């Protein structure tokens, strides 16, 4: 199937009448996923959005419930967002990140209704990456510029049109409803060419990384790696797979709401105990946790690396702390696998 680029705004307008549609929207020098009211608002030419698509499913601050306590008792009100949504123009790395996050929000112990309701009611329409950025390393972490993991439809840019690849039943239904034209053999071969031409030039070698992390918790490498890290939350907040959160009450007396906020392992209060003790006393322990969580603990827990290679942390770190360099340093460090 195929849709001409000039038909995209009209297609989105039709979707908007039925769904809450999120698409990349220009905000100054970058794009962000926003709920759009007109198909012409969508910017499909830019590379990744500044903030990942995770914020649609797991917002930075989410009201879990409102409460008020009166003489007659306590009253709780929960408002779970079950609007039907389409995420349009998501990149394969971000789509894959949600499949990783599903492990956290839906497992044997916990099922998070806020996240899962949104996931169940959302159709993911991705756009493949014809020109991956120099900071992209998706192919090193099981992804790829045209990876369909987590997508319902994948669009492949062939110049004046997008060739539409159906990935799931949800996607099939949407494509049928949209009435996309059939792609000609020429279109199909143009899509195949685009896929072939897309090169992820940056590779990060993660062979043996997990083995190393299994044994190097106390290795001297951690004394050096963190040294330039400022301890801000830019990398974690811009990361599509970071998912740590804190729960606070936003209330006056007994009336208010309970809110779930993104948290960051880089912050000194992240593991600060009520007693005043902090098991992660310095940046060293905090930065180590970020690497361990992504490349060891998440693998231990769910069998996957919690990094999709989107490059946001690389591009946005105020001091050019580059996760590719860090992983290289860890792999090449002195901690011996046979010790």
């Amino acid at each position: 199937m195929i849709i001409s680029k000039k038909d995209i705004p009209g297609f989105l307008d039709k979707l908007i009448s039925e769904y809450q549609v999120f698409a990349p929207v220009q905000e100054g020098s970058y794009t962000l996923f926003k709920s759009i009211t007109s198909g012409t608002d969508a910017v499909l030419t830019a590379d990744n959005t500044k903030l990942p698509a995770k914020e649609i499913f797991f917002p930075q601050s989410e009201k879990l419930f409102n409460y008020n306590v009166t003489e007659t008792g306590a009253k709780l009100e929960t408002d779970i967002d079950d609007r039907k949504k389409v995420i349009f123009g998501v990149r394969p790395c971000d789509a894959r990140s949600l499949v990783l996050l599903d492990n956290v929000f839906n497992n044997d112990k916990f099922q998070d209704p806020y996240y899962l309701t949104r996931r169940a009611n959302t159709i993911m329409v991705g756009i493949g990456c014809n020109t991956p950025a120099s900071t992209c390393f998706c192919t090193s972490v099981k992804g790829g510029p045209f990876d369909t993991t987590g997508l319902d439809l994948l669009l492949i840019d062939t110049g004046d049109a997008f060739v539409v690849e159906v990935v799931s039943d949800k996607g099939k239904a949407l494509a049928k409803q949209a009435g996309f034209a059939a792609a000609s053999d020429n279109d199909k071969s143009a899509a195949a060419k685009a896929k072939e031409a897309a090169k992820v030039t940056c590779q990060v070698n993660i062979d043996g990384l997990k083995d190393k992390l299994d044994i190097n918790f106390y290795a001297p490498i951690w004394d050096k790696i963190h040294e330039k890290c400022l301890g801000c939350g830019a990398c974690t907040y811009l990361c599509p797979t970071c998912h740590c959160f804190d729960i606070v009450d936003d209330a006056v007396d007994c009336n208010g709401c309970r809110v779930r906020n993104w948290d960051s392992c880089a912050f000194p209060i992240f593991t600060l105990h009520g007693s005043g003790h902090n098991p992660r006393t310095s940046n060293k322990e905090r930065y180590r946790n970020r690497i361990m969580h992504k490349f060891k603990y998440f693998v231990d827990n769910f069998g996957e690396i919690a990094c999709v290679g989107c490059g946001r942390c690389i591009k946005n770190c105020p001091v050019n702390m580059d996760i590719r360099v860090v992983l290289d340093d860890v792999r090449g460090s002195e901690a011996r696998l046979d010790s």
Partner: protein
Amino acid sequence: MPKLAEQIKDAAKKLLAEQKVDLVVGFAEGSLPLRGTPLFARTPEEADKLTWNLGCENNLANYLRKKPGKVAVVAKGCDVRAIIALVKENQINRDDLYIIGVPCSGMIDRKKTAALLDDEDILAIEESGDTVVIKSNNSSATAKVADLLHNSCRDCSYGNPVIYDELVGELLPEKEAADFTEINDFEAKSVAERRAFMNSEFSKCIRCYACRNACPLCYCEECFVDCNQPEWIGKSAYNTEDNILFQVVRVFHCAGRCVDCGACERACPMGINLRLLTRKLVKDVKELYNAEAGVNMEDKPALATFTVDDPEAFLLKE
């Protein structure tokens, strides 16, 4: 620049080899085009990685507080101003710090370079005298360095380090202090317009605190935003009012201490115009007390001193 880099390397290696210092804080080549990244060298071999380019934008004074032993720092004008401010606040012992001063005519703003190529992925930036050539996959552009500087660098008149133990390179010609046009324009707006601007800027804030952590003068053991008993400020990011409160308190806390290095604005991943606020305070302190932070070792910080002819317009009709 390559010559400066060699001189910095030589100076650092000598200091380490002669064991005059235990550590040299400087810049190494970063992983992105024309990006310097902080380097901590403890041996002459490690010091071999030191460099100097138009992307050495971080304020290294940030790394000097409470470092044990003797430390040398590769410091441009704004780093030195921050060092002076920190020495005055008892955060750095001047006797334990060796300053390798580097005259600086400004660092380039990668957002401005990217804009030249329609925000394409920049693959290389090559320095050649007072111009740079910026290359992406499909195109390239040549631009004057002066047109690509960070706004803080454009406005800076302290590119020459005001104190140092050793100077690398040649002192630059004195530059006149920039005026406060942007601040004057902002002040001329109505209250409602200013409020609208603040709301629009701070609705972008994600409370990652990169601004605070990049600021060499923001060093409170416990920042008021991290305190929850009492909870001075809401912890959630959906409230723009709280985002504004955070930044306004931060900026006021830096009044008379801020050296206008622009580190906060450069660190912000969301591109918030933070310097409008910090520079407003720089202007107020200059106008009220004829003071600038960190420009010499003698002056007391503006808000740590008092003279009988200090203006008191906030209190008395003058």
